């Protein structure tokens, strides 16, 4: 225990800056993924036949081992921020897209008919009726996705990505040494804290943006 405190004493600055860059890449990845998923979702909405293949791609893609994916990035994008971001986006898009499509498909036909029947255009109906109604499911997708990305981002250290992965891998590489356990432990705790904070953030977003009529 005293070893751990000693480690914190010397290492807290690294830990903090790594935490910050961890949060940063997660946030960037989430933003990019949201845009990508929204575009793909819109495509699947306009072309109904695309929904099925997209959904099956999304579920198989999630089974890819992240380490393998990171490895594949090195020959193409080299090391650092960009390959990490790309892998994170590939992972994060899946649950978002999945919930987007499921959410939009789950709306009662009677409501859609009412919307069209009173004279909404297709686009108007999408943004005024369908997205708000699917929103709780979409936010759930975002929340799930962000949890996953916080974890996967740590593996990004494998390709020299930013974040707490560096400390984590350091510790794992020197198992047996005095600093190994504190490093792994502190990095893990920070990752957990980030995850909890993000989860709380999405809870808040959902409270604030989901209509009370469908909560």
């Amino acid at each position, binding site marked *: 225990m005293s070893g751990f405190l000693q480690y914190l004493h010397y290492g807290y600055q690294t830990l903090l800056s790594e935490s910050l860059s961890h949060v940063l890449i997660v946030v960037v990845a989430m933003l990019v993924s949201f845009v990508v998923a929204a575009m793909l979702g819109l495509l699947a909405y306009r072309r109904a036949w695309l929904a099925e293949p997209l959904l099956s791609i999304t579920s198989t893609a999630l089974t890819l081992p992240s380490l393998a994916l990171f490895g594949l990035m090195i020959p193409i994008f080299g090391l650092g921020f960009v390959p990490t971001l790309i892998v994170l986006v590939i992972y994060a898009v899946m649950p978002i897209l999945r919930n987007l499509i499921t959410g939009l498909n789950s709306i*009662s036909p*009677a*409501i859609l*008919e*009412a*919307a*069209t*029947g*009173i*004279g*909404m*255009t297709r686009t*108007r109906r999408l943004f005024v*009726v369908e997205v*708000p*109604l699917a*929103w709780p499911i979409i936010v759930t997708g975002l929340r799930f996705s962000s949890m996953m990305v916080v974890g996967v981002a740590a593996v990004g250290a494998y390709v020299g990505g930013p974040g707490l992965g560096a400390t984590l891998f350091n510790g794992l590489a020197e198992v047996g040494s005095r600093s190994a356990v504190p490093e792994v432990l502190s990095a893990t705790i920070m990752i957990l804290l980030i995850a909890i904070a993000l989860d709380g953030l999405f809870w808040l977003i959902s409270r604030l943006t989901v*209509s*009370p*009529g*469908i909560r």
Partner: protein
Amino acid sequence: MALDLSPQEASNIGTELQPRRSVIELRDVSKHYKDAGAPIVDRLTLSISEGEFVALTGPSGCGKTTTLKMINRLIEPSSGQIIINGQDVGDLPSHRLRQGIGYVIQNVGLFPHMTIADNVAAVPRLLGWKKDRMTPRIDELLSMVGLEPSIYRDRYPRELSGGQAQRVGVARALAADPPILLMDEPFAAVDPITRTSLQDEFLRLQQSIRKTIVFVTHDMAEAMRLADRVVIFGPQSKIAQVGAPTEVLSAPADAFVASMLGSGRLMQLLSCVRLRDVSLDRWPTLAQGLEGDERLAALSSAKIEGKNRVLVLDEAKRPLYWIYSDATGESSKVEVDCKLELDATSLRDAITQIVYCSHDCAVVVDGDGAFQGIINIQGIRRSLAPLAGAGTSAANIGVDK
């Protein structure tokens, strides 16, 4: 006293007698789906006038909803033409067309994520209304359908009962004051008592807003109660009969229509015919304040007609009381205990009233309370005689087999 049953007259019951402009016209409209063999709607031609309330009715799956949705192009007809106000519905972008037509669907279809006010404001918002015009309109509409705005404005649909949701559905359809209203079984999802009161309220509302209404229902009694004209679809999606409720009820076109109407047919007929539709009997009257000789003269001339009493009216011709003459020439006053209103009373209500009133006949007055005539059971029987055709006798009244 006979009921006038010429078709034009009958179809004008409940509306003005002047000829009216045709607002919706279906010309040879058909709908068939590729995979299905027989057409769902087969060469339907129908013209609906301004302010007319038309009910489409018939067995399940006969194409009522399909017909309705072709009018606002939720379903495209396979062939034929649909004209609204002289313009082919295909000429407008479909969402523009629909913004001008109120639409109420069976399962209400309120937007669950919007407040009641936002639901009602949906169409005005599409039309780009300003907020200062929208807010009072929402309150006006909610009051119109019997919902107190301050209570319901900010609620969400899930916080409403089925009947309240139906009302909001109607309010939403009326929001931008469209001249045409399409309604698909709007009152089907509520219990019979609520349904009846919704129907009553809606009839009253229609009296003041005078929309052109196409109303789908599989409930014959509802169609007969509400509509000026009823379209009964038969098997193979053909029109079996079109006509005013009294017309259809008194002379079903064929065995199919008769079977659709069922054994309650005469009772429904009695509900549809108002006192203003039958000719009333006259009765000797006496102006209030006339005494002595004039009174005696009136009583004795009544006696010549075989009547033992006269009705005393005030200066606005409102009935006050009966004066009887007995054998000795003395006269006595008796209260008028059974007064029926010409426009509001159906024959069915009249019968019930007469059965309980003490003179075997009811005094009929107009909206201002002025005396119009009297009606009794014999009179009702006489007016029913021409209606009781098609193998059903007037003796069957009230007998539900």
